[in-house]
């Protein structure tokens, strides 16, 4: 996993390497400085030796300047490396998702992909910054300080060596105890948020059923639950600082005692008073590096979950890709399904489409009717190769869709999706998704075809009206017509409307179909609809049920022979005979 993630470092290799280097140098200076300070006191101030004091003072100033330089450099490079790494990681993820097929997207779900690209990247970036800095600094500080301490007095270091493992074990035990409870607290927080979210969203239900008091009780319980778990954890976590404190204090006391005896007994030959002070400084440094290491370990474990999630996306293989040799032109709008079976999970038992055979000629208008989950959308999604068939073949213009260059194919097969979205930007910008180089006249023309021109002109800003994210400032029917216009601008050979006029009134709906008939007669049109009225004038209508073709023929033929079609027709026509 680390190898995959570290690929995103790329052009920031130099700062990534320089950061730990400068951190290391900074640590060296930081160790050196207390040493010089001690010397300044021992050889200079304490003895009143002005010359020595000046000399050591100068050394100290130089050391401080070096330390400042190293510190700043490591800080700057760390910032560059981590921001750069995050940039590339985000980019790699985003590019990867762009290459995903529909089934890849389905696998992760939109919301989870967004989290991986936002929150998870931020977490990993923080971990990265920590790795380049603190994971270098803390162990190095520990090692150097230990060496220096031993160097000053090996015997006294024994005190440290006995204390260290005790503290390490204590910290580990606390972590082991606290970690699972913290995890469960996170889940409880989710519960809390869920209650709030439900209440905020469903406030009308809460108020009209007068259940405020119950909801308060419910929330109170979850809130109390979190409180209790937290108290359990806090009781233990409150031990951390006292443990560290007692370690430091114990260190000072023990070292003072043994050190003092040593100084007196050897008459300052084995250890001087200045050295004793320095030794204590190092001891404190050792202990705090240990504390820092334990903190880093905890933070890294937390970031690992995010890293895992990012890794999953990075190693996912896009399962629809171009063949080596591709065909770039689509001859015409003929469509053929040959023994096509399809299942989303690749499992033969759970087939969504079962042995479909179908031939549609260029320029025909085809209606597609069937219940929810019968396989209508699945069927049409195979034509622009949004999914690959499990068995059989889909041909467009007489060629297997898998032999086309994907972009060329999709430019010719325009699918107006059922769950469609507009993007933030003006209406014109949105329509031009179909063709970036289209002229304004062409944009107006397709909008007229899709019966959208009229309402667009009614907006104060016309074609420059700004569409909010998700198209929330236009009505459902308007949104659908804009989506159709956008698809028309591609001038496709095949146009698929996947329940794309459900919110459009029947009259406009029929106007759209009329425009299609008259203006783009050569385009193959496939129309999925719930309303019989939307498909009854099609050249042919496909009735699909449970992944199989149940009927294929004209409106009249199906009315006479197909039970499902007749049932749907009757239920819709009942009492609304004028509804055409």
């Amino acid at each position, binding site marked *: 996993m680390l190898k995959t993630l570290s690929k995103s470092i790329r052009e920031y290799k130099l700062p990534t390497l320089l950061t730990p280097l400068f951190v290391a140098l900074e640590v060296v200076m930081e160790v050196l400085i207390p040493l010089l300070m001690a010397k300044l006191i021992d050889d200079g101030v304490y003895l009143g030796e002005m010359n020595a004091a000046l000399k050591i003072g100068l050394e100290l100033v130089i050391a401080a300047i070096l330390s400042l330089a190293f510190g700043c450099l490591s*800080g700057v490079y760390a910032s560059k490396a981590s921001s750069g790494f995050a940039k590339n990681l985000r980019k790699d993820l985003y590019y990867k998702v762009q290459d995903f097929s529909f089934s890849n997207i389905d696998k992760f779900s939109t919301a989870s992909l967004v989290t991986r690209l936002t929150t998870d990247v931020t977490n990993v970036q923080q971990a990265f910054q920590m790795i380049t800095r603190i994971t270098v600094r803390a162990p190095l500080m520990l090692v150097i300080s230990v060496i220096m301490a031993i160097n000053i007095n090996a015997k006294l270091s024994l005190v440290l060596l006995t204390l260290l493992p005790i503290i390490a074990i204590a910290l580990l035990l606390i972590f082991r105890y606290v970690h699972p409870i913290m995890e469960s607290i996170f889940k409880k927080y989710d519960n809390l948020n869920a209650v709030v979210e439900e209440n905020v969203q469903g406030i009308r239900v809460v108020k009209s059923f007068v259940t405020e008091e119950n909801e308060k009780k419910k929330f109170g319980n979850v809130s109390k639950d979190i409180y209790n778990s937290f108290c359990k954890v806090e009781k233990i976590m409150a031990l951390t600082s006292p443990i560290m404190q007692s370690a430091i204090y114990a260190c000072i006391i023990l070292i003072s005692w043994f050190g003092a005896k040593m100084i007196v007994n050897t008459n300052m030959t084995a250890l001087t008073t200045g050295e004793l002070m320095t030794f204590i400084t190092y001891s404190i440094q050792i202990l705090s590096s240990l504390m820092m290491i334990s903190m880093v370990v905890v933070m890294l474990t937390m970031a690992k979950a995010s890293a895992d999630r990012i890794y999953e996306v990075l190693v996912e293989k896009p399962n629809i890709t171009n063949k080596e040799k591709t065909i770039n032109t689509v001859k015409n709008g003929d469509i053929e399904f040959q023994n096509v079976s399809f299942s989303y999970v690749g499992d033969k038992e759970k087939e969504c489409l079962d042995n479909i055979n179908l031939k549609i000629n260029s320029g025909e208008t085809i209606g597609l009717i069937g219940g929810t989950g019968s396989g209508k959308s699945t069927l049409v999604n195979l034509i622009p190769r949004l999914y690959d068939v499990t068995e059989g073949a889909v041909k467009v213009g007489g060629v297997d869709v898998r032999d086309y260059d994907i972009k060329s194919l999709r430019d010719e097969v325009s699918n107006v*999706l059922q769950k469609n979205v507009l*993007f933030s930007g003006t209406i014109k910008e949105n329509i031009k*998704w179909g063709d970036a180089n289209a002229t304004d006249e062409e944009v107006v023309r397709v909008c007229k075809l899709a019966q959208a021109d009229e309402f667009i002109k009614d907006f104060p800003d016309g074609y420059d009206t700004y569409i909010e994210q998700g198209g929330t400032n236009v009505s459902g029917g308007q949104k659908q017509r804009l989506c159709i216009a956008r698809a028309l601008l591609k001038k496709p050979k095949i146009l698929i409307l996947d329940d794309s006029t459900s919110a459009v009134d029947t009259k406009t709906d029929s106007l759209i179909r009329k425009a299609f008939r008259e203006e783009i007669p050569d385009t193959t049109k496939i129309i999925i609809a719930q309303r019989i009225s939307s498909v009854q004038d099609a050249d042919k209508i496909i009735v699909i049920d449970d992944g199989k073709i149940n009927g294929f023929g004209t409106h009249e033929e199906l009315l006479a022979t197909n039970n499902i079609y007749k049932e749907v027709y009757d239920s819709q026509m009942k009492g609304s005979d004028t509804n055409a």
Partner: protein
Amino acid sequence: MPRGQLPRGRGAAMMRGPRGKINKGTFPRVIKYITKNHKKQIALVIVCIIISSLANVLGTLFLRTLIDDYITPLLSIQNPVFTGLLKAISIMACIYVVGVVSTYIYQRVMAIVSQGVLKDIRDDMFDKMEELPIKYFDTHTHGDIMSHYTNDTDTLRQMISQSLPNFLASSMSIISTVLSMIYLSPILTIFVFIFTALIMLCSTSLVKVSSKFFVAQQKSLANVNGYVEEMISGQKVIKVFTHEEIAKRDFDKINDQLFTDMYTANKYANILMPVANNLGNLEYVLIALVGTIMAINNFGGLTLGTIVSFLNLTKGFNMPIQQVSNQLNAVIMALAGASRIFEMMDEKPETDDGYVTLVNAKKVDGKLVECDEKTGIWAWKHPHHDGRLEYVEVKGYIEMEDVDFGYEPNKTVLHNVSLYAKPGQKIAFVGATGAGKTTITNLINRFYDVEDGKIRYDGININKIKKDDLRHSLGMVLQDTNLFTGSIRDNIKYGNENATDEEVIEAAKLANAHTFIMHLPEGYDTVLTNNGAQLSQGQRQLLAIARAALNDPPVMILDEATSSIDTRTEKIVQDGMDKLMDGRTVFVIAHRLSTVQNSKAIMVLDHGKIIERGSHDDLIASKGKYYQLYTGAFELE
């Protein structure tokens, strides 16, 4: 163990930049929350913090005394006796033990107190929220409300459990260090002050620069995250339009901008520590030299020993100052969060001056008498001003008389609406989005109050009826079904805690929901989460119908679903709705005309006015707007 780590809310909450407005009186209010139920604990905490910091300072001073008073004198003695030293060290050990114990006590007590305070704030916040009028929810985004419970509470938690105690502890060490320094040498202390001021100046200017870039970074981050969210949500459309390359190009642009801002912001933040530390080091050298010169020249009565002690104090002086300034930042952020929380708490709750209540009743000798048991008859208990007590049977007669209304002052949405529905009648509202259909129903159940005019329920002005009772007598099925985490049974029982299982099943059968519920592996005990995401749109609507049916109110408000469900399911849902409507006064907000034809009256709304009214046949015959809608010349939505 990093205590600062908590789930940081969803992506949206993270994108919010540092919005930092602190309202007056926020800090005292937080303190009031802390001290309200925990006076004794807080007193204990303060005492313990003082003891703990004193122990710490004494420890630092001890080392010098140890060398000067115990080790150095012993050096010249032939047979040194260590009892004095042992005694001193033992005393020190005792002081340390006291220090450690008080640290533990204050850490632990404070942690529990802060959790308690947070629980109080959270609970109060939710209680207040439940009392807020619908208007509040309509005018605030859900993300904003949610962030009060996640981000804002989290920063507050950090402040109470960490920043405040640290603040106190650091201030203690600063005060004691300063006092000791002044005691040792006032002149050198002035030097230290000047240098410290210099260091602070450097750090604050660095902080200023970096925080400027942090704001920029936050903005770019919000940009990138927003872009990613929009693009990934529309990823399938991108694929269909083979728009991948353009999407990549646009992304690169804002991603690069984010890099620049992030790099700059962190750069300044990262060099803050080395700058402050090394200025501290320079300060040390300077004081050592100045001190030595002064001592050698016998200036200011300084001895070399004093200077050594003084230098040690200097070393320990910058750290707590650094800490205080760090905490200050956290405190400011937390107070901004607290301000937002208190703002929500201070919103005016829904008021209720109603005094007419809803009671169970039975008929004795043709007269209504209040009773405790459920009889299927409800009555309005109406105490008149003259002390008379009147019982009116709840039948479901609704009248609106010249009602005007606007969501904002001076922007009237409903003009002069008058209508009535006799018990058992079905009234349909038809019209374009924004015509005022939903607004009318919002007024009947008093989600909003009329501006002018009157609404009467069984002849009683609804302003006189207690809101809870009014809403009990009105059933509601909304177009977006909201289900709650819990079993299907709990969801149907929603608002009717005491209903029996038989009643639940009966309601489900009436709503045509029983069949699909029985097909679920756990039946009525199936637990729904995430707004019933595991059910289909149609099934969720059936549950909403069952939920309303169980309540059995005389008046129903139905808002038809707009989303398209397939014909068969729609038939089942429609059938359930029809059964629910049977025998009740019903207001239907129609999105499809096929369902309103059998209404007693259809009201066609346009721009907040009833422009046509009458039965289906009347309206078709008059060839007005309804006729146009019906023939498909206009869109409903």
